[in-house]
């Protein structure tokens, strides 16, 4: 992926964004990358809405691969496990198995109303240091209410400690917009 093509890709991406005349017309920030980031997505029991936004990240408008970030087919090839939640008991073992085969260094990004993870104001991503970051935007869903509802369910559980310890970002909105996802992934930096 040479640099001469990234300029063309970015220009096309900006033209599509202008054609859309949507709410957000600015292109996400470009960062110089030393390494690509490989993501493996696992649905821990979500309502499939977060998956729709993750799929949108690979469309030409958001164009995740332009930043060297790719979704891969196997956890063995991945740096980052993107889990959408809440986590259900039925998905606990498959998720743990997927995490176990990921090579070190490995991290997790939790997307959606997970139990037992800190939630800031809607639209913020919390990095592992506990410092809220990311662009604030109007609250569209009462995510903390949603978490409280799922906490009562017999079928959901918090992320197990082994996975929660490596969690570097939580996007608790349901769903976070592709802009918020892109922002969080670009700000994550090098996982090593």
């Amino acid at each position, binding site marked *: 992926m040479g640099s001469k093509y990234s300029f063309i890709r970015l220009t096309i991406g900006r033209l*599509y964004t202008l054609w*859309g005349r*949507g*709410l957000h017309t600015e292109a996400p920030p470009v960062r110089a990358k030393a390494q690509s980031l490989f993501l493996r*997505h*696992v*649905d821990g*029991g*979500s*309502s*499939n*809405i*977060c*998956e*729709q*936004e*993750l*799929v*949108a990240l*690979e*469309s*030409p*408008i958001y164009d995740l691969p332009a930043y060297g970030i790719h*979704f891969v*087919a*196997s*956890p063995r090839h991945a740096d980052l496990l993107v889990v959408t939640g*809440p986590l*259900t*008991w*039925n*998905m*606990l*073992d*498959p998720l743990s198995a*997927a995490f176990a085969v990921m090579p070190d260094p490995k991290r997790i990004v939790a997307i959606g109303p997970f139990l037992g993870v800190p939630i800031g104001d809607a639209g913020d991503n919390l990095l592992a240091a506990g410092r809220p970051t990311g662009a604030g935007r*109007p609250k*569209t*869903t*009462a995510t903390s*209410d*949603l978490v409280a*509802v*799922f906490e*009562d*369910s*017999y*079928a*959901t*559980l918090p992320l197990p400690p082994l996975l929660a310890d490596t969690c570097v970002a939580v996007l608790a909105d*349901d*769903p976070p*917009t592709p802009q918020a996802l892109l922002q969080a992934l670009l700000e994550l930096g090098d996982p090593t």
Partner: protein
Amino acid sequence: MPDAHVSTLTTPPPAAATATVALTDQLQRWLAEAGSMLQPPAPNQLYARVDDPASLLALAAHLRAAQCFLVTVVANDERELEDGWFKIYYLFSCADVDLFMLVEHRLAHASERYPSLYAVFPAVDPFEREMVDLFGLRPEGERSAQVPSGGWLHAAYPPALHPLRRDRTTAYLKQQVQAYYVKPARSRPVPANAPLPAGFMRLVAGPIHAGIIEPGRFVFRTAGEVIDDLELELGYTHRGIERLFQARMTLANGWQLAEQVSGDTSFGHSLGYCLAAEALAGVEVSQPAQVLRGLCLELERLHNHVGDTAQLAHDVAQELLASELAVVREQLLRLNAALCGHRYLRGVNRPGGVVLPAPFDAVSTGVVVQRCVRRYADLADALAANGAFRERTKAVGWLSRPEALALGVTGLPARAAGLARDFRYLHPNGIYRAGWIQAGLQAATAGVAPDDRVEARQGDVFARFWQRKLEVDASAQLVGTLLDHWLADEPLRGADGGPVDLLRPVRFDPARNFTFALGYCEGWRGDIVYWLMQDKLGRIFRCKVRDPSLLNWPALRQSLLPRLKDGRRHETILADFPVVNKSFNLSYAGHDL
């Protein structure tokens, strides 16, 4: 002219033929013969209680012969209520008339077995599997061996948990599940695989798949490349939603949980729930709210069909078309966000009406929809004309009309197999009952070229794609009609500026405690049906959610089996499975709840 609006809403569609009256009478007679007639929750329903197993089976045979469809099966723990034991409610829909048949069956006292309708209606299979796990109710006789437990509650759950029984608290359930999992020396039952004949192989895929997709486990039995059978193991996204309706939600705010059932169908599910709650409260929403509900339902249909087409193109490596279609979908999602503040139309429905956070701009909505649909039409035509795409999708994943009828398939896969199954025509409610909308729907159907219609009913992957394209065209016309109606009518537009609040007060009468009502709408995958029973203090006694995917997963399996087609052996190879699965695009979360 406010009265004109009222009259268009309450005027029924053009009078049906006398055959319809004869059918209604006959159904009523069968129901009365089988058991005792009861007062139905709504005028387009017949309701009977049938306790005798033989009568129930006879009635089911009559209904099957009359080409009725099984819509939903609701098990209910009524041990604390008047009749004192478990009940199962069957809901059937007439194929040609706007008529539902509700059959209530109380299980024999102190028995956890019920007579199975599987021999007559194979569509009960997923419901019976659900009842085994969630209630512990099993069918009588040999059928019980065909209904395994563990479909919804996998090995992580203690046996005999039966979470929808009301004699245990939600906290107790949670504590039981946690205790079972941390038990150090737990032994999980390992299912024994049936021995395979020589030359066959078992291939397990899932629950985690190679793409960004929901979890489900597919166990293929293959002979080389050819798929011989498929076992579906779902339930991975089971979040206990029906129990949460009873435990955490009230009738007034249950729509928030309904939106969580299947995220891409947020609006359809919240609409089904709100219609059920409004039926319980005896409230009909105002016409402007109905227009907006129709509009949002069609917008949801549009963005999902466009997204599905994009994913289908991606699956056959037509990446350029897939990318362009993804851009169109993004524009539709941004339109949703501009309309109601959420890209997937959450937070719009309430029992009593709709709420929008911003003024509704009908003109620009219409412009964006027409522009996107025109672009989609060009791209879909390009995809359809693409030889490689046709090679991958024609005569692949074929589901015939008799098979669809036998399995009780509903929604888009049924229409693509040649069954006319659309609740907007068949059981219209809300704005779809208005004469001018029905005329619009008829015009949209009549405007389809005969070749297109034939291609869209072949039952293969191409037909499910082409059916989506035709539905996008029809939805665009409906959206145009709805917006024209909105702009033309002064009373509808109301005050400009400020958020749109079209709510009628809703009060749940305690006299209606422990009665139930139905709410249904035609979501983009198929008909969504909510069965809602009111509890004391405005809470929910039982909410049965039925996403169309529950009925349609067996259709996916059927479309892959090797069988005869036009005298020749029709087979599906493993490499075609992703395309077939994507052409159905069923909801895992909607199935698992």
